[in-house]
């Protein structure tokens, strides 16, 4: 048994309308790799924010190294030896790597010394990084290295990692795990947050499973099957996604040598992307975040206009058309970002239905809107997709992530698209909602639509796609049938290990 490093006792935190954490207790030993497992909304991030000093608990206590630990803010947490690698929101794109690292340290050394230290640590742990580069120009994997190095420079006793592998290829994940194992051997405890069961089983020695804010189990994941873990995490079993075998029909969507610049300063340009999708077929497009996924969706939805022949829909060149024309013809899409892109946060669901369905559903005449028709359509979507909301007048931002995602996908599916393109259809969505969304996409394909699913979740793509390709730095890999694909092959399609190396430290 390891010596206890952090002991958490009865932590409770409530927000208006939800109890994020209720009486959470567990402990982490020195050098232990401890998994925190749970669905989206289970309270994982609130819990780690309390440990990192970003949120104060309503009740309960923590002890670090045997003495009381109640960090006022992240500075205090860092000073006590707690470091955190964030999933989002902690890097500054316009600043250099060194500046980003300095901002996460309590007493950064002089710039020149810091640059040297960054080089040293990045060398030691196999995380190559140039301290002078601007973070905005880095890939998702490189950005994560910045965060990790920022933590390592402070020689933390406890390293919190929030979903670190969602931005990595399988090869990179393997290298990261080796780095983490070395750290653990050096005595650094790691609190590893994830919902990926196999990862946890291969890396962690203890797992605390949260459900609806409560600890439901603490166990050794190596002795527990993935199935058992999943049931503990989700609570109830639900129907697995089913797919019928079907013969693909005619080509509905064809993309020829699509190249397009990104509208964002730090975006990724599309380079020479070509593929075809047939009626009844689901094409899965994988890849690490930031490799052109947003741009590909925009080029297909019409937000990015290209040369007409680059995008063909049922044989008609549509690359030069805007979103309205493509939608009317039957080429529909749903972008990744729910709030602010797929839906307007402060507008009602009915208004958000108008947003894409006005023309195709006949919700306007001569430009004048048919609000009662729109309400009817919205209610249809709410009912068909089991969107939990008081009614169509509710603002989009009032819905939970899963419910809003069901609404956004439902809004497009209910318009009977000929071709549907979705980006990250189940990102941040609980398992039951994710299954429902995937089932709806498969059902749509079963009825003869062509579906393109862009996703960073490989399990999802393996579940729904017939064929698979990966985006890497704006280029699309070869397209292969999903059946028979190995994780190794998928990883190579995504760009392999890029330039990561195995850590050089001796354990």
């Amino acid at each position, binding site marked *: 048994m390891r010596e206890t490093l952090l002991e958490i006792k009865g932590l409770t935190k409530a927000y208006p309308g939800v109890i994020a954490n209720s009486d959470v207790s567990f402990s982490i030993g020195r050098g232990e790799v401890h998994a925190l497992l749970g669905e989206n909304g289970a309270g994982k991030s609130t819990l780690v924010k309390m440990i990192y000093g970003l949120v104060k608990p309503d009740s309960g206590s923590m002890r670090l190294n045997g003495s009381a630990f109640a960090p006022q803010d992240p500075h205090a947490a860092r000073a006590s030896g707690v470091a955190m690698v964030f999933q989002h929101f902690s890097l500054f794109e316009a600043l250099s790597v060194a500046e980003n690292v300095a901002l996460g340290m309590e007493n950064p050394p002089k710039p020149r010394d810091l640059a040297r230290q960054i080089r040293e640590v990045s060398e030691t742990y196999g995380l190559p990084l140039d301290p002078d580069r601007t973070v905005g120009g880095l890939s998702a994997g490189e950005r994560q290295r910045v965060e990790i190095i920022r933590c390592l420079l402070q020689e933390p006793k406890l390293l919190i990692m929030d979903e670190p592998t969602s931005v990595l290829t399988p090869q990179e994940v393997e290298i990261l795990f080796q780095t983490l194992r070395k750290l653990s051997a050096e005595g650094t405890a790691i609190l590893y947050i994830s919902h990926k069961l196999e990862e946890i089983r291969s890396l962690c020695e203890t797992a605390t499973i949260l459900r609806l804010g409560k600890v439901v189990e603490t166990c050794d994941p190596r002795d527990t099957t993935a199935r058992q873990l999943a049931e503990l995490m989700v609570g109830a079993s639900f129907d697995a996604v089913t797919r019928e075998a079907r013969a693909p029909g005619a080509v509905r969507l064809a993309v020829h040598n699509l190249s397009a610049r990104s509208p964002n300063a730090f975006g990724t340009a599309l380079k020479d992307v070509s593929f075809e999708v047939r009626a009844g077929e689901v094409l899965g497009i994988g890849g690490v975040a930031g490799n052109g996924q947003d741009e590909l969706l925009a080029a297909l939805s019409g937000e990015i206009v290209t040369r007409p022949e680059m995008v063909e829909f049922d044989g008609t060149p549509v690359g030069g058309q805007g*979103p309205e024309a493509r939608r009317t013809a039957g080429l529909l899409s749903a972008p990744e970002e729910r709030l602010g892109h797929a839906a307007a946060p402060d*507008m009602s669901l009915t208004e958000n239905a108008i947003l894409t369905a006005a023309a195709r559903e006949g919700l306007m005449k001569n430009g004048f809107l048919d609000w009662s028709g729109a309400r009817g359509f919205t209610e249809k979507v709410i009912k068909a997709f089991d969107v939990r909301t008081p009614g169509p007048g509710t603002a989009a931002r009032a819905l939970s992530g899963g419910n809003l995602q069901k609404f956004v996908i439902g809004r497009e599916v209910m318009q009977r698209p000929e071709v549907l393109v979705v980006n990250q259809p189940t990102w941040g969505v609980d398992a039951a909602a994710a299954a429902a969304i995937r089932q709806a996409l498969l059902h749509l394909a079963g009825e003869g639509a062509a579906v393109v699913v862009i996703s960073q979740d490989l399990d999802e793509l393996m579940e729904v796609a017939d064929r698979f390709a990966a985006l890497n730095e704006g280029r699309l890999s070869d397209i292969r049938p999903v059946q028979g694909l190995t994780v190794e092959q998928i990883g190579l399609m995504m760009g392999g290990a890029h330039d990561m190396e195995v850590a050089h430290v001796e354990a």
Partner: protein
Amino acid sequence: MIHLVKRPQPSRVWTAVTPLLAVVLTMIVGGIMFAALGKPPLEAIRTIFWDPLFHPQFAAYSRPQLLVKAGPLILIAIGLSIGFRAGIWNIGAEGQYIMGAITGAAVGLAFYPLDSFIVFPLMVIAGALGGWAWGMIPALLKVKFGTNEILVSLMLVYVAEAWLASVSSGLLKNPEGRGFPGSRNFQQYDAGANTEVIAGTGMHWGVVAAFVAVIFAYVLLTRHIRGFHIRLTGEAPRAARFAGVNPGRVVIFCLGLSGALAGMAGLFEVSGPAGQITIDFNSGYGFTAIIVAFLGRLHPVGILLAGLLMALTYIGGELAQLMLGLPGASIQLFQGMLLFFLLATDVFTNYRLQFGQGETA
């Protein structure tokens, strides 16, 4: 400790209550200010808000003034509010107002002394076009080059003012004016005069135009896809692009519309209440209309009410100047405070207060 919690959706009650709360707060703080200036606060407040409508002696004169002053404010504010809804910040309405007045008056003066019913409508169209053209400058620069419309439209106010100074003592100067600066007076040119539609009410053609604009804006924003797209652009620009809105066209439409309405307001003013082009015929309506737009919650009906209220403070302010010797500038400050308090209380529309333990900020 008190902190703010975001409401799941905007509160309808607070949307309506905040303007009233802002008025009350402004009265309180304004009263303190009047007291500090050595004026009786309650009497000053009463003189500003009550007497123009109900004073036995002055009300007969000042009541019609309410519409005369509210007309241009509402007309301009309606145009501005549509742009503000889309996140397009035209703050140069004063310049568009001046340019509309100049072009409209120039057309009228060109016809002088022709006596035809066609003159006045032509002047209105010319005024709208003049304001529209002045609004198109920031619009086109924004669409073509991404230039900030706030700064450009504001700079153009100063340019328009210089232009006004130039024409009132040059191009449009009254040839029979014995050398005094200023154009011919439209009050003495019937075909080009903006007259009262119903005598004695203050309701001139500009007021009619303002009411039409209110109805037009209401229909546009609540019933038409174009109005929906304008709101969407302001709420979530990326979602608007996804919906298929061309942001450039929204900019052109909004700045063009607000420019045209401001230009019309300028023409109505110069051919009616002001009577002639002079170096200072404009009385800052273009700026006050910004307050009106916000006070009316960028909603057409709200703007109608806010325009009347703001007109009241103008008239009441003049009355208070006359009767209590209140400095004219204090009314300007009063109006500015109204906007400030509105913005301050607006937070309750989207957030509510919670007492107790909170986040570390």
